[in-house]
């Protein structure tokens, strides 16, 4: 803790608390779901590597193919997939 915080008063505590409003809930939720999204991404890439027809579907319409495969086409998954598919 910095020396400025030593002997802090209530007014200062209130001012500091105001500096940290919550981030929008949807943003926090999306960030918390990253591990699941990451796992989903890995599964989709593995499937695209093994299944040429699925790969073609992804190339034709990424979001629709992801949804049709039963996955949530979140922005993280779509952008990650777009990046990874270039390497497949």
């Amino acid at each position: 803790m910095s020396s400025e915080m030593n002997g802090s008063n209530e007014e200062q505590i209130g001012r500091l608390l105001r500096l940290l409003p919550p981030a929008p809930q949807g943003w926090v939720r999306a960030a918390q779901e990253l591990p699941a999204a990451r796992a989903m991404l890995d599964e989709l890439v593995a499937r695209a590597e093994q299944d040429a027809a699925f790969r073609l579907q992804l190339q034709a319409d990424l979001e629709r193919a992801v949804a049709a495969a039963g996955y949530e086409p979140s922005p993280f998954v779509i952008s990650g997939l777009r990046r990874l598919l270039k390497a497949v």
Partner: protein
Amino acid sequence: MTGMTIRQRSRIVRDMAVEQTDAQLVSRCREGDVDAWNEFVERFSRYVYAICGRGFRLAQQDSEDVFQEVFARAYERLSDLRSDDAVRPWLAQLTRRLCIDKLRLLSRDTPSEAEPDDREVDDLLGRLNEAMAVRAALDSVGDPCREILDRFFCRDESYRTIGDSLDIPAGTIASRISRCLEKVRAELDGRSRASRPS
């Protein structure tokens, strides 16, 4: 935890976590502990959000892009962190760099998007670090103080809204805020004494 609101989930995660150091939390995240990752995002979301909004004055949409990118990179690169204790400055640096990248990208289209002065951002980071210490103290004090102070100072809710939400008379909110602030101050003073070399 399916079917719960994000606040309910956050509270459970927070209450389950006996106050852990940043290093302990990072170590659990590296082991693939999903609850630890939830707690990590919960602990640092306000910090990252404040750097984007207050430090670099990014618009909401641009802040959201940076916010998600910060946590995506943090998730993928936690193993690169040299010292688990250094996670907060590491996140601050990462957020700062991504905000600058975003502003530079925006300024190609809108030349008026100016980067803030480095010193301004350094000052803000100093204050945000103090604010994080206050939040940690607030978490230790726990509810109902945590809820009341968060609603009043961080969510800017009126006495009436707080009273209605928590089912307490609006006329008592001011005195509750005052008592809760005293508790947080006492907690901070205790921490400060404990961290002083004897």
